[in-house]
């Protein structure tokens, strides 16, 4: 069982300092030999993973080929989204399959939510110390 890797919160707005710190994790996404490095917001309040439109295009995903519509809500309710599956790698851990709601929206960050980022990784937040730990889920049999 690999050890957890520790990541630091990122201050989004330097003028606000700690008030704008969010848990962003560097992430490598791969789709049919195309690779894109992004920072994903580890968001325990999000029901699902969300991928902005441009990142999907950089991965070579073709909108018209994605037939599974995904219904979003909140700020994203007006943006059409399709389900896509890519390979994601965090730190030194083994790659995992990540399902994303690929949205037409480009304002949204890469969101890593309950389905299925939190189903693949165990995550522990230490907001008071501006760090969070991630490690792959433990197999049910262990």
């Amino acid at each position, binding site marked *: 069982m690999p050890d957890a890797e520790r990541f630091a919160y990122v201050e989004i707005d330097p003028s606000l300092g700690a008030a704008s710190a969010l848990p962003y994790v560097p992430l490598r996404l791969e789709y049919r030999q195309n690779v894109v490095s992004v920072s994903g917001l580890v968001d325990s309040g*999000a029901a699902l993973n969300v991928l902005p439109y441009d990142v999907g295009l950089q991965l070579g995903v073709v909108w018209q080929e994605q037939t*599974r519509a995904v219904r*979003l809500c909140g700020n994203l309710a007006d943006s059409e989204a399709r389900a896509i*599956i890519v390979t994601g790698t965090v730190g030194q851990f083994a790659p995992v*399959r990540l399902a*994303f709601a690929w949205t037409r929206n480009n304002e949204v*960050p890469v969101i890593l*939510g*309950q389905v299925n980022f939190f189903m693949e990784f165990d995550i522990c937040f230490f907001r008071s110390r501006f760090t969070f730990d991630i490690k792959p889920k433990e197999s049910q049999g262990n």
Partner: protein
Amino acid sequence: MSLSDLLPTIQALPRSDKLRLIQLLAADMAREERAVADLADKTVPIWSPHDAFEGAATLLRALEQDRGGS
């Protein structure tokens, strides 16, 4: 380490260091409060699709189908 652990050390400091400590703590607290006040003036978008359970179910089905197809 608690305040009661620190107090004897703080009380033993020379007067100039005590003044410096007061200034440091005051500046630290002011910075925290300013950050909160600045945040109150800003519009912060909340992107989290926190109720998108139907969409989440769609993704789970997509993963299952992908697993079956690969």
